[in-house]
């Protein structure tokens, strides 16, 4: 039971943990140009949600 309740929160806890942040920060330190790619993709998704999806 205890394990089940712990498991429910585990994905969010992991995302907010220092270990995961450490991995991501190190990755972007090595490949800084990927920040621009991620930003481009997120901006595209935002534009899609705001401008295109309502008309679909």
């Amino acid at each position, binding site marked *: 039971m205890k394990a089940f309740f712990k498991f429910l929160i585990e*994905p*969010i806890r992991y*995302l*907010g*943990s*220092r270990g*995961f*942040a*450490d991995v*991501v*920060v190190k990755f*972007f*330190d090595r490949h800084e140009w990927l*920040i*621009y790619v*991620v*930003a*481009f993709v*997120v*901006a*595209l998704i*935002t*534009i899609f949600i*705001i*401008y*295109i*999806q*309502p*008309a*679909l």
Partner: protein
Amino acid sequence: MPDWAANLSWQTILDFYLIYVLIVLVLKFVLRNKRVFSMFLFYISMWGIFAFADYLGLSIASVVYEELPLLLLIFIIVIGAPDFRLTLESLWKETTRQGTIIMGSERTKSEIIKAAMTLSRQNIGGLITIEKHNNLDQYAQRAITLNSEVSNELLVNIFTPNTPLHDGAVIVRGDKIICAGAYFILSSNENFEKTTGSRHRAALGISEITDSLTIVVSEETGSISLAINGVMTKMKDENTLNEYLSLFMK
């Protein structure tokens, strides 16, 4: 022409550009500090879950989703303030870079080394910060202005216990001691031993947010350490100190 294409115009491109720039800036900002980034990830994951719940029309989750921006504000002010401050200060490190730098002469270097060795021998605590590209005026303004030539005698005198200026750092710019009694923000580096004194933490703190070099003399052991770019290195002897200073001041 498909229906969705009618929604696109030059404003869409401008909107896209502005969002893109904003996301790049936010990502660059949060990726500078692991703690800020882990908080950011936590917030984004919560926001994603509640946005999805709102999309599904879940009543209670929708109320939380509407309040999330307020939660973010509280989050930044209460929890994240020290980390945001540290991250903004590291941005300041780049914006305050001066084009031309004034480095001290050979005489200044040898006077600083002599003073450090004297302080070490007599177990007197000392903190000497040498400025490089990043201007340290904001610390100097809150300290006691000196503007005097660097000399071994003056440095030893400043750090002599029970004198008004001994508790704080001396800032050196070129061949001048611009001030004494300067206070820096202490480093919160967790990899550092918890028993580390505030003098060493101050030296590490200033080295994390500026490109200066700080010489710390321990009051307890008389050991000499150098703090530069967030790294503290213990000096074995006078020659090692000389080598480090020569590299830094050239």
